[in-house]
């Protein structure tokens, strides 16, 4: 399962990167951290744009760097696709020629049929004849993504592809990224500092701080780890993978299932069987010792408390298991004491709100 092994030690005087990572061969691995945490430097080391003094990088069994054996594959020899923060299109080439630039240089490229599918997937068919200077920021970034995919790379690296866009353009591009997420069968390493992008795209989450890996694991596990700052954040949330099982048209609701239970959501316009990512904010979850039966809240689920924070201030964080899913709840420390909540006891959670991510 693990096919990406990356160990890098790099020193720039005031900044040190020291990571040892193993990432899965499928899905999106998000490198998450504040600016200066080293996430972009790590990605550039993987691409070979930066050469760590000490490094070992193995992708799908191929060694791209091994400083002990003096192996360092130049970027242009690495079968990767890279999307920069700024789209970095060639300003002297049309959109189509930009797409062809890499394609021409790769033997097992995507081929014209699949390139056309990628062009459709990213909605850039009407832009092919234009020059990059006549594109909006969002369009440029979509072209850059298509240009990287046209190479038919073994791995796709994306460095904050949405960071330079305003909120409206971000919203315009995110659905395309979500679609890519479902259709790509290569690993993607995605750098961001946005929790929203983490929630929407990540399968694996790597949290970086000051050049070191603070945590690394599946999104659900990492999101709900109480020893990480993420769980304490006001925006703390967990993301569940669910499947549409039923539409309750009378009430404009959709029922979805997950391993060990089901939820009601506001009506989703999608077929039964469709996979969804649902985000539940910790602040929208409350805990009850008995099953509440006269409440307006629809989503009441049995749960078991799996972890608690010590009550150090007014707010406590509780990690629960609902079936196989992990859930976070932010409650007051006072409630924690009054309800005598302990690890291992069975409770009911009330979920006040959910948001659908794709």
């Amino acid at each position: 399962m693990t096919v990406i092994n990356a160990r890098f030690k790099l020193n720039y005087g005031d900044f040190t990167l020291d990571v040892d990572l193993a990432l899965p061969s499928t899905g999106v691995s998000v490198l998450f951290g504040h600016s200066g945490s080293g996430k972009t430097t790590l990605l550039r080391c993987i691409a070979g744009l930066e050469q760590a003094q000490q490094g070992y990088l193995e992708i799908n069994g191929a060694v791209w760097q091994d400083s002990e054996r003096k192996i360092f594959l130049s970027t242009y020899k690495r079968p990767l696709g890279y999307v920069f923060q700024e789209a970095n299109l060639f300003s002297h080439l049309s959109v189509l020629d930009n797409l062809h630039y890499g394609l021409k240089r790769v033997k097992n490229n995507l081929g014209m049929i699949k390139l056309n599918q990628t062009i459709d997937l990213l909605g850039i068919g009407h832009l092919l004849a234009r020059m990059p200077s006549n594109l909006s920021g969002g369009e440029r970034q979509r072209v850059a993504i298509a240009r990287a995919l046209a190479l038919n790379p073994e791995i796709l690296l994306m460095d904050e592809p949405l960071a330079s866009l305003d909120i409206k353009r971000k919203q315009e591009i995110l659905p395309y990224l979500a679609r890519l997420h479902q259709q790509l069968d290569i690993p993607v390493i995605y750098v961001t500092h946005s929790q929203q992008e983490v929630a929407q795209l990540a399968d694996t989450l790597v949290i970086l701080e000051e050049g070191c890996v603070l945590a690394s694991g599946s999104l659900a596990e990492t999101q709900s780890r109480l020893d990480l700052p993420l769980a304490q954040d006001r925006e703390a949330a967990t993301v569940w993978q669910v499947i549409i099982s039923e539409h309750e048209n009378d009430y404009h609701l959709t029922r979805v299932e997950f391993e060990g239970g089901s939820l009601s959501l506001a009506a989703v316009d999608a077929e039964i069987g469709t996979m969804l990512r649902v985000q539940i904010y910790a602040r929208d979850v409350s805990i009850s010792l008995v099953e509440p039966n006269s409440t307006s809240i629809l989503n009441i689920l049995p749960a078991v408390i799996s972890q608690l924070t010590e009550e150090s201030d007014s707010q406590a964080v509780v990690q629960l298991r609902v079936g196989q899913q992990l859930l976070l709840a932010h409650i007051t420390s006072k409630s924690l004491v009054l309800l005598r909540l302990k690890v291992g006891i069975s409770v009911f959670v009330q979920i006040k709100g959910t948001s659908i991510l794709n």
Partner: protein
Amino acid sequence: MLSSADLDTLLLTFKVAAIATTIMLLIGTPLAWWLSRTNSSLKGVINAIVALPLVLPPTVLGFYLLVLMGPTGIIGQFTQWLGIGTLSFTFYGLVLGSVLYSMPFVVQPLQSSFAMIGKQSLEAAATLRASPLDSFFTVVMPLAKPGFITAAILGFTHTVGEFGVVMMIGGNIPNKTRVVSVQIYNHVEALEYADAHWLAGCLLLFSFTVLLVLYTQIKTSPMAQPFK
């Protein structure tokens, strides 16, 4: 009217300028690329050497070249060892002098247009499987096109107009080293003002036309216009 001798000098001048410009572009391109990318401590020295002809009196440059190309000079000994004699008072001596004299006019516009091409474009090319040489030809050269045009035009016109260096190393040999600027001088010396007018007028028209094209057609890169 232009006499046939005048026409010969014009032809010779353009021949020197064309060959010198070609050589300057071939040498100047890698040199300018290196200067625009390097952090080497040699950068300052090389920059200064390249720019020297901008401030040095042409006769000084010509004098040193004359000495160096002479039978006892380094260049002279080298060319004699090659079996081609000395270069002073020859066509190729003139080309060599022109190359050194006009080099800054080629290197500087190239250097500034290379510097404007960010690291990002080259990194993008590398992630798209282009080797450094490949990306130089397919990304750098097209993006630096205004710089190349400016460099070629300035190098060429500056060579056409040189006088001091020619007088020192080329002399005044018809059909070998007698270029337009020298011919104009000859006409004036002989009080043939009408002939001097014709030739001077030709050069004035030529220079003005070239600059007009340069400033009206090349709008892409303001950096490529060093005199703006």
